[in-house]
Structures are given as C-alpha cells and as structure tokens.
C-alpha cells in the first residue's frame, strides 16, 4: 500500500498511532475516534474522507494540537503537537471547519491581528490576494459571503508560510468557481513542497487533489491508499432498462452480478469491457433496445459508499447518533 507514496521512507511529517478520542464521561461518553493510524509523508497531500460523524474533525483537532489524545500518540514534524505547541505551531497552518473571526473586523484588520500572532507572516495584502480577496480587504467579516469567509480562513492559515497545512472541509460553502480556485491554490502549495492534510466529504475533491486518502467510518480508518488502490478490485457498473416485451432471457455474463428490479437491470462486473461486449452482442442479436444505458468504471464514490455500508454492517458504532457532538453551522455570526 505504501509503494506509491511520494515521500521518502522515514520522512513522514505526520505520524498517528492508535489514536483514540473520547468526549464526556459516564453515560454520556462518546468514543469519537477508535484507534486511528495515519502516516503522511513530506510534500504529500492526504485526504481524510468520511460521512458526517465519522470522526474526521475529531481526529484532525488532535493532530492540530487543539486537544490531547485520549489514547495513542501523535507526532507532527517529530513533535507532540499538544505538549510541544510552541515548537510545532510556527510551522503549521490551520483552517478550522468554520468561523473564528469577529464579525465586526474587516478582512484586512483580521489579517493584521493574525499577522501579529504569526511568525514570519506574509504581508496581509499578499495573503488576501492569494485567495482572491484583495478587493474585499476593507469589508467587515459579517458582510462577507460564506465562501469569502472560508477563503479568508484559508488566507489566515497560509499567513505564516506553513510547512504543514491542515484544512478541515476547505471547500464547503464555496461556489464551483471558488472551489476550482481553491483547488488550484492547494495544488500550487503542494508543488512548492507544503504537506497538506485535509478532510472533505466531497469525493471529487479527494479524487482531484489527494496523493493518498483514508476513508473513516465510525471512528476508524476503514481503508487507505491512493485513489487507484482504493478503487482497485471494486466492480464497474452497467445499468439499463429492458423494453416491456423482450422475448429473450438475459444472457449469461461470466464474472458479473446481475440484479433485476422490474425492467431495471444493474450489472456489477470486474471486467467491464467483456461484460459490456457480451451484453451489447446479446441485445443486437435479439434486436432489443436497452433504455437509459449507462456503463461506468468503479469510482471513488462507489468505492466509498460500498466501503461505508460494508463497515456499517461489520462494526456498528455503539453510540446512537443523537449523542454525537452537534455541529454548529453558522460561520462567524456577528455578535
């Protein structure tokens, strides 16, 4: 699994071993992270995927040094990010999932305050320009759109030219254009050697950006590897609708699994080309028109959904969803 990793062996920037994190005590205790292992090499872009409540943010907060682990060890740049905060912080940049800037300050004033608490800060104007907010410098944070606030957050994370960048759902709330711009920026940073650990629930984002990824479910890493490795072995899918009267039985398709739901047929196959050839040959021979025909290779999305549902059947989380820490949705609301 580790062969295609770009970082040199032993040159890992983030090392997480058997990480556990609990919230609360007694009856209300919630075990959010249940033994996570992760390694991110220098210059690598690693994506942490998972459904809501999978434990992505809980894991990330411990790696960022915001909270101590309940169990296990975390090393960032060779140091404990919680105990050796003063050593680690000047070298990392963090973008939280939401908010964190007073609504009544302008973007530029926010930048000035952040520059004051950041070693080796870039000029504020440069940081705002990087994320395309240069023209909004004089606007108060509460008047920025949700997407603009996310970009301001990213600008603050980049202010100290970090070696390691943590991005918690960086493109949530962005319009497609802004998302593409953020992806371009993240790729540029990676090209310059920045190590990036991001969480996302956009599979497309992970597919676009990540060198490697891990899929989390129920506080555990269910699978990890490159996109190709995660998809490998996952079946392709063919779907179509049969006409009302076919007059011929479906052909035998070797190595494929066929599900029929009324006239709707789904074929899952590990050999897409052969199965499709067999199917189309059968259809031509019998003069059958296949409606809404769709054939696609395994995608990360399908792999993700399959892995998540497999994991859900194998190890159901013991704590009901209601006990999960609720997420706050308002970003930087003015108060």
């Amino acid at each position, binding site marked *: 699994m580790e062969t295609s990793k770009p970082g040199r062996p032993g040159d890992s920037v983030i090392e997480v071993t058997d990480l556990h994190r609990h919230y609360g005590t007694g009856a209300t205790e919630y075990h959010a992270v249940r033994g996570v292992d992760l390694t991110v090499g*220098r*210059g690598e872009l690693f994506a942490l995927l998972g459904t809501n409540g999978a434990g992505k943010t809980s894991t990330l907060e411990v790696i*960022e040094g*915001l909270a101590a682990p309940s169990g296990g060890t975390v090393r960032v*740049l*060779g140091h404990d990010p919680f105990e050796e*905060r*003063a050593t680690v*912080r*000047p*070298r990392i940049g*963090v973008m*939280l999932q*939401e*908010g*964190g*800037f*007073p*609504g*009544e*300050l302008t973007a530029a*004033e*926010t930048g*000035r*305050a*952040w*520059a*004051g*608490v*950041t*070693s*080796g*800060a*870039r*000029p504020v104007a440069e940081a705002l320009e990087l994320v395309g907010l240069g023209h909004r410098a004089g606007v108060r944070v509460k008047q920025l759109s949700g997407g603009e606030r996310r970009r301001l957050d990213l600008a*603050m994370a980049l202010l100290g*030219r*970090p*070696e390691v960048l943590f991005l918690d759902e960086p493109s949530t709330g962005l319009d497609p254009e802004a998302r593409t711009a953020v992806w371009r920026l993240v790729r540029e940073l990676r090209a*310059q*050697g*920045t190590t990036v650990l991001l969480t996302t629930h956009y599979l497309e984002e992970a597919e676009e950006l990540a060198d490697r990824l891990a899929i989390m479910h129920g506080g555990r890493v269910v699978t990890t590897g490159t996109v190709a490795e995660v998809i490998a072995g996952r079946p392709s899918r063919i779907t179509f609708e049969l006409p009302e009267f076919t007059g011929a039985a479906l052909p035998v398709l070797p190595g494929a699994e066929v599900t029929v739901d009324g006239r709707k047929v789904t074929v899952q196959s590990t050999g897409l080309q052969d199965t499709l050839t067999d199917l189309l040959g059968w259809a031509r021979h019998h003069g059958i028109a296949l409606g809404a025909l769709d054939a696609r290779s395994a995608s990360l999305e399908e792999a993700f959904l399959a892995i998540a549902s497999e994991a859900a059947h194998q190890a159901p989380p013991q704590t009901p969803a209601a006990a999960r*820490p*609720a*997420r*706050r949705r308002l970003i*930087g*609301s*003015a*108060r």
Partner: protein
Amino acid sequence: MTTAAPAPATVTGPQSTTAGRLLALGRAEATLLLRNRAALFTAVVLPVVLISTLHGLLKKQSEDNPGLDVHSLLVYGSVGMVLAFVVYYNLTAAYVGRRGELVLKRLRTGEARDLEILLGTAVPSLVLGLFMAALIGIGGSLGLHLAVPVNPVLMLVGLLMLLATMIALAALSSAFTKTVESAGITTLPVMLVMQFGSGLYFPLEVMPSQLADVCRLLPTTPAFQLIRVGWFGTDGSAAATDFLGSWGAAAPHLVTGAVWLGLAVWGAVRYFRWEPRR
C-alpha cells in the same frame, strides 16, 4: 525552524513575540470595543452616571455616622466601580462574545499561548479601566483636596491584585454565560458583591461588625481594602497610620486577597471554555 523546509522562505517576516501578540490581540479587541456601542456605553457612561448615586448614598450615611470622610470615600468608591464595570463586566462579555464566534478556538490554532489570548483580549478593558480610574482618582483627589496617598506601593499592590482577580473572575463568569446578552445577569452576583460587600457603596465601618467581618472575607474586598489602606492609611476600622504602619494594617488583607486570587485563577483554569458547549 530546526529542519530545512522545502517550502520557499524568500521573504520572512519578524518572529512573533509575547509583547507583539498581546499588542495585536489588544488592538483587534480595542477596535471591536469601539464599534460596539452597547459595550462602550456600559464601560464608559454607566459607571460615571452611578457616581452621583454613590455620592447621595455616602452623604446620607454621613448623617448617621459623623466623621465619615465622604469625599475620600466617593473618589475611592468611584474608582472601584469604574474598574468593576470596565474590567470585570466588560471583559466577561468580551470572552463570551469571542468564544461564541469561535475566535478563541481559532486563536488557539496559532502561536499565541492560552494566557496570552486571555490577556490580549483584556488589554483594552485594562487600559480603559486604568485610564478612567486614574482620571477620577487623580482629578477627584485634586478637585476635592484629598490627602496624598500614604503608601503608593500598597495601592499598586492592591490594584494589581484587584485587576488580576477581576480578570480571573471574568474568565470564570464567562464559563457560566451562554450569550453576551445574558452576561448582565451572570455577572450580577460578583458585581453586587463588589459594590455592596467590598465597601464601595457602604463603607465596612458603618456596617454591623459581624456583617463587616463577613464582607471582609468576600473575594474582592481584600484588594479594595489594600487600595484604601495604601491611599488613606486605614481601612476605616482603626485610626490612620503612616507608611510603615500601613503595612501592618494591610497584612490580613494581603493574605485573604492572595487566597482569593489563587481560588479565582484555579476556578478560571478549571472551568474556562474555549469553544461553545456542543
């Protein structure tokens, strides 16, 4: 920077220092205070308005207690009240506001240490409070021809102890305050204790002696009494002393004050919340 970073570092800004961080956080907080009319009103106008109430109260008490130095107590009480509103109340609201906006959590992802974040947020409250206290204290002393302070060192010790206790109490109170709006209610107990129990509105010497003894044990009373002893040479329970004698009069207040400061800091560390309860 111990390891060679592959990331380009062509232009590097200055290293961040404690002083720089306090200044940057204080400046941002000051901007916020100036843009928040309600907070500014509570901090600047309200205590000044209350000074006239205080004057009336003291005057009435002096009718029953001849010999009560109304002028000295008015200036002293006004200084205390200004600090209570500007530092304790205002700062509690500021901590709650920043916590609600997740500003405190976000700051903790940066280089500022926890104590720097708390003190940086307190900078404008402290500066404004001290400025107003100095204005009232010095202006009042000159205008009303009050005596020169007996022991300025003791006054300074009392002032520092008072401010430290107030900051810790503000951090502690913010832990029990959900919104900025409810800060007015959650700060009420401490505000009442300070105004009525620490000898600001009613000098302890006009109270029944048992009540006065209880009041002397309240959290902020010792620090206030230290300021009073340093200023006038007595806390009102004995005849005024000189510089040397004032240390003796101050000793018990120093001890109880230090104990309360320790407890307030312990409580703040134990209960302070960096992000909203989820």
